[in-house]
């Protein structure tokens, strides 16, 4: 078999069986071999038992930006994975499975939701198969020429337990290593890379790394004839060190680089992992050689306390932030309006998930655009920024703190579950261009006016400044911060807090408002924000290869909306050649654009299953829209 440029991989199994570990180890092994990858983690809101899977794309020559079906390799921990994904394996692909499940029938899969089961049953019937693993395996090998490679998982684990004298109760913990090993062998990843990946992931637990590598060695003998069955091209040259991290991870790193000193949070998916990483570094900050102070990461009693304590910390001059998802953000809104009223910088990292209410806690969405932009009573300036990929998220995190302090406003950094929980390879961020901008910090003094009307941006002195007293209040107030209901003061103060929008728009550089990809010669413009960037750029590349002049506009500054620049960039094409894409029902960016620019976008691509838009979905929808078959396409693929 000749080698290929890219390989799609799915690792599937019950939630709680170590798939996230498999993803992390396999990603490190591939990265150390020099490959690029992206891996999306799909899981139920459940601790153990429900079906979860990792959907990965590995490339030998460039950073993958989107996911696609079918995939070349599926590694199944259980029968449910085979039933759920057997249609997702490409012809001549590979299915790795446990020989123990060969006799399983669909009705035996108790953890599968009834709706899913009946849909899968229909697919099985349509193909004229029996609803059991055996029949599916036969179909895959005979009709699709897929190599279905059975491994007796329990035998492998038993051998391991004999070798290391491991208690049988703990053997299931090694399933993740078995999956990593089997896939690495199929992909022909060298021993050394796999070994180091285990070592790096398990760190000081060297014995665990050793035992996992022993599984790899056992399987190497067993799978000898299949080694390199799906072989990737030798990787293109790249830097000597690369980063493998999730969106949550890079945001946490960005916060540390930005100098966050107070982070509050209330546990919520998919935001909590960010605070977890920050928490881990709350002591390391003091241990490092520079006297850079302490970072307090605090789990509060609720999201109200998270935002209000972060605002309290900010009043003392500290860079502070909180991190949440939709339900938590809803609880924070009164606090955000207080921050707006009191010209207080604070950063809210907002990872969207499927709503409304509890919605789909572990699934992705971009349906909270309006919530981020319009939440809060009364009118006040705020900044809403979105990030299109991991690297953007890192730098935007730092930018968020700068903007919050420069303009003394709440900054909402709007991300989503797709980015938060997906793992990607990337170049290590360079800190040499990172700038800290703190804005107007006053020393205060006798007669200090926190809300002076002399300038649009008020003189901000931290609480505790020498010889200084100040007042803050959620009521309308005078320059000292005392309650004041005088209509003239009201007009001055109220408009001051809103008119900051103007200088925000003037000060933020164009590349922090939006970026055009694909070229300025476009005849069609696809536009969106946040995590649709990757799939949009891949679609643009494919369409340009076909000679279609499509570009993508990645909108970063969602509020205040860059009306003038937006009008300028789209003026070369008629409105009916603008196409918006978003993980929501409404494709709400189109409404926001219409409100702020008067430009009417009626071509919309939408997906709100909670699963990411795939490249083929986007290509199909663009084709339908460009050929004028329809104005709106809604997609649903993916389990």
């Amino acid at each position, binding site marked *: 078999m000749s080698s290929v440029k890219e390989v799609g991989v799915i690792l599937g199994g019950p939630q709680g069986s170590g798939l996230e570990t498999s993803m992390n180890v396999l990603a490190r092994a591939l990265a150390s071999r020099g490959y690029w990858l992206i891996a999306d983690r799909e899981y139920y809101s459940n601790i153990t038992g429900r079906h979860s899977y990792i959907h990965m794309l590995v490339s030998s020559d460039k950073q993958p930006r989107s996911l696609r079906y079918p995939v070349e390799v599926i590694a199944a921990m259980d029968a449910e994975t085979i039933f759920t994904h057997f249609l997702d394996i490409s012809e001549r692909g590979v299915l790795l499975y446990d020989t123990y499940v060969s006799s399983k029938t669909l009705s035996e899969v108790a953890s599968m939701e009834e709706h899913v089961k009946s849909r899968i049953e229909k697919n099985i019937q349509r193909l004229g198969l029996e609803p059991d693993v055996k029949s599916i395996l036969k179909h895959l090998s005979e009709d699709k020429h897929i190599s279905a490679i059975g491994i007796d998982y329990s035998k492998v684990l038993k051998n391991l337990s004999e070798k290391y004298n491991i208690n049988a109760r703990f053997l299931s913990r090694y399933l993740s290593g078995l999956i990593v090993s089997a896939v690495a062998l199929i992909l022909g990843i060298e021993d050394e890379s796999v070994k180091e990946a285990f070592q790096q992931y398990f760190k000081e637990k060297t014995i665990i790394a050793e035992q996992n590598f022993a599984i790899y060695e056992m399987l190497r003998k067993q799978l000898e004839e299949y080694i390199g069955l799906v072989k990737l091209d030798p990787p293109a040259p790249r830097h000597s060190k690369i980063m*493998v991290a999730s969106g949550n991870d890079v945001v946490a790193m960005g916060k*540390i680089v930005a*100098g966050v000193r107070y982070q509050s949070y209330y546990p919520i998916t998919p935001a909590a992992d960010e605070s977890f990483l920050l928490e881990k570094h709350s002591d390391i900050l003091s241990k490092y050689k520079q006297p850079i102070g302490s970072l307090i990461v605090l789990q509060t009693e609720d999201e*109200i306390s998270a935002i209000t304590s972060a605002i309290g910390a900010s009043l003392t001059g500290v860079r502070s932030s909180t991190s949440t998802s939709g339900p938590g953000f809803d609880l924070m809104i009164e606090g955000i309006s207080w921050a707006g009223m009191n010209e207080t910088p604070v950063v809210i990292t907002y990872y969207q998930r499927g709503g409304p209410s509890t919605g789909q806690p572990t699934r992705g969405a971009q349906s909270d655009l309006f919530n981020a932009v319009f939440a809060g009573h009364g009118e006040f300036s705020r900044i809403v920024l979105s990030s299109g990929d991991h690297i953007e998220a890192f730098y935007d995190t730092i930018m968020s703190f700068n903007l919050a302090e420069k303009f003394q406003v709440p900054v909402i950094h709007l991300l989503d579950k797709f980015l938060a929980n997906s793992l990607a390879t990337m170049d290590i961020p360079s800190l040499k261009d990172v700038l800290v901008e703190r804005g107007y910090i006053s020393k205060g003094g006798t007669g200090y006016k926190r809300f002076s009307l002399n300038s649009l941006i008020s003189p901000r002195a931290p609480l*505790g400044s020498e010889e200084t007293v*100040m007042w803050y209040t959620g009521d309308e107030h005078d320059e000292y911060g005392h309650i004041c209901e005088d209509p003239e003061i009201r007009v001055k103060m109220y408009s001051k807090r809103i008119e900051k929008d103007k200088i925000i728009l003037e000060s933020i550089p164009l590349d922090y408002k939006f970026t055009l990809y694909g070229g300025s010669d476009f005849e069609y413009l696809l536009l969106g924000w946040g995590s649709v960037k990757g799939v949009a750029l891949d679609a643009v590349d494919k369409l340009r290869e076909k000679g279609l002049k499509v570009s993508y506009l990645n909108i970063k500054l969602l509020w205040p909306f860059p009306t003038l620049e937006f009008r300028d960039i789209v003026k070369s094409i008629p409105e009916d050649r603008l196409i918006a894409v978003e993980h929501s029902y409404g494709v709400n960016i189109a409404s926001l654009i219409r409100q702020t620019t008067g430009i009417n976008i009626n071509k919309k691509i939408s997906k709100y299953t909670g699963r990411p838009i795939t490249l083929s979905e986007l290509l199909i929808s663009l084709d339908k829209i460009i050929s004028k078959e329809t104005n709106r396409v809604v997609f649903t693929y993916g389990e």
Partner: protein
Amino acid sequence: MVSKWNYKSDLWIDWCPGCGNFGIHSALIKALEDLGLNPSKTVIVSGIGCSGKIAHFVNVNGVHTLHGRAIPFAMGIKIANPELEVIVHGGDGDLLGIGAGHFVALGRRNIDITVILHNNNVYGLTKGQASPTLPLGVKTKALYWPNIHERVNPVLLALASGYTFVARGYAMDTNHLRELIKKAIMHKGAAFIDVLQPCVTFNDIYTMEFYKKRIYKLEDDPNFDPIVRKDEETLPKYLKAVEKSLEWGDRIPIGIFYINENVSTFEERLSERSTGYKEIPPAKSIIEEGKPIIDQETFESMFKEFIVNVKKHQINK
């Protein structure tokens, strides 16, 4: 001792004439004078309602926050800058109704903050609705029906939540309250004072006459000592405080119910996980304009778990 600072703000105080808040205000001012607290290092954090306005009526830093949220604002301020003396003022609706979760959480954390409850049994500023401290079946003149909720006992709740200084004062006995406030401020850990406060406009039940007849001082009982001095005294003194907190009726105790400085403060607990906290708390961190806060080498070493070395033959030379 004559303080070098004038704590009285020159704003006109807009509480009703005869309001219990005046008593709390003057006790607070006197306590600040006695302690000589530096106004620029002192912060009054208040909630919403009549009591919330007190932040404006004292010449120290004032943060007038949201309904029920004075405690978490204060927590952020105190944790970020432990050098500040932080005093929370809130009403009974504020601290024990909408903000009850934060009230409990502060006790659990034992942060070195003083909480002063202006307890008048009603929501004054919205015209006298029943508050969480109004007993079941009581009908004040502003209520159409008698109160349908049972009361919460602030002192008992504070004890249950873990406050390490728990007291009750009376707004009209300013000298007694002044001493309580001083002790609460000096206390190491979370301090709580439940201040019984007549509302002359909306509460015709819990009036000055009502309290005058019933109030007695715990310190007048020579057998009652609320201070935990040794670990083994913790349980008996706590139980005694609980018992005293249940006294409500013909005789209502004011004074200190419980003091225990043997419990670790939140600041101490934070220092264990962030060893630089005492030396350089968040507000003392220097974050300079223009300069990156950490260098590339530190960054890569901090996050080495995310950095993979690419095998040599693949490296771009």
